[in-house]
């Protein structure tokens, strides 16, 4: 089956990323396909290089990037949510006249909701991670 994961949890909870990442790893191990992950709401900060977890916490930013390198899938950050929370890539920074102020990890990209819905259209399952903020 083809999966798309929607991440919208608050990254300040150290265990929050664990379920989503473990789910992604497992579905790949079971020979399902991960089409992509989409970061919305507070999860946009997963892509933020300036948001660094504590020494004894897992750095999911790198975990997702490494996983996407081994088993290629899209890692997209919701554009509206990202801009609102100060997580921007190079293109957006240039457009806003804030060159060199971009703070997005190189493996992540800003994308509109249209891209997310187009991805969901191809998926058999869309799983959301993250309830109450």
């Amino acid at each position, binding site marked *: 089956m083809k999966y798309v994961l929607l991440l919208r949890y608050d990254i300040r909870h150290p265990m929050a990323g664990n379920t989503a990442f473990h789910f992604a790893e497992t579905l790949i191990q079971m020979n399902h396909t991960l089409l992509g992950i989409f970061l919305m*709401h507070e999860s946009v900060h997963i892509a933020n290089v300036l948001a660094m977890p504590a020494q004894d916490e897992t750095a999911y930013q790198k975990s997702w990037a490494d996983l996407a390198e081994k088993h290629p899938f899209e890692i997209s950050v919701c554009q*509206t949510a990202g801009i609102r929370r100060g997580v921007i890539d190079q293109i957006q920074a240039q457009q806003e006249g804030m060159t060199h102020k971009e703070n997005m990890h190189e493996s992540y990209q800003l994308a509109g909701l249209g891209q*997310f*819905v*187009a991805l969901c*259209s191809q998926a058999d399952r*869309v799983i959301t991670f993250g309830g109450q903020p």
Partner: protein
Amino acid sequence: MSKKKKILFIFKKPPYESALFQETLDLLFVCSAFEHEVCVIWAGDGLFSLQKNQAPEKVKIISQLLLTLPMYGIERYFAQESALLDRGLSLADCILNPITPLSDLEMAALIETHDCIFTD
């Protein structure tokens, strides 16, 4: 490769609590623009977003945003009956109509008929 899906949106949060409502509504409009079949349930505190006579100062009026749903061709509206009763709300005070009340069992049945569920 991509097919039309039946997508269900469930609004459970009170309307002015956070940006979540607006961001979920944006997702709903995009799903509709992609011509998926969209259906909406208002449950729990989400029912407050349907109430007439909202007059917040300095922020967008949520009920006005909901009035644009018919323009996107979204016409199937449902409300969780138990939540209406718990909150002392009536469908007559809602800005959209017709809204079909659902028992919790009917809600579960409706959820089961959809391909994809998004909540706020």
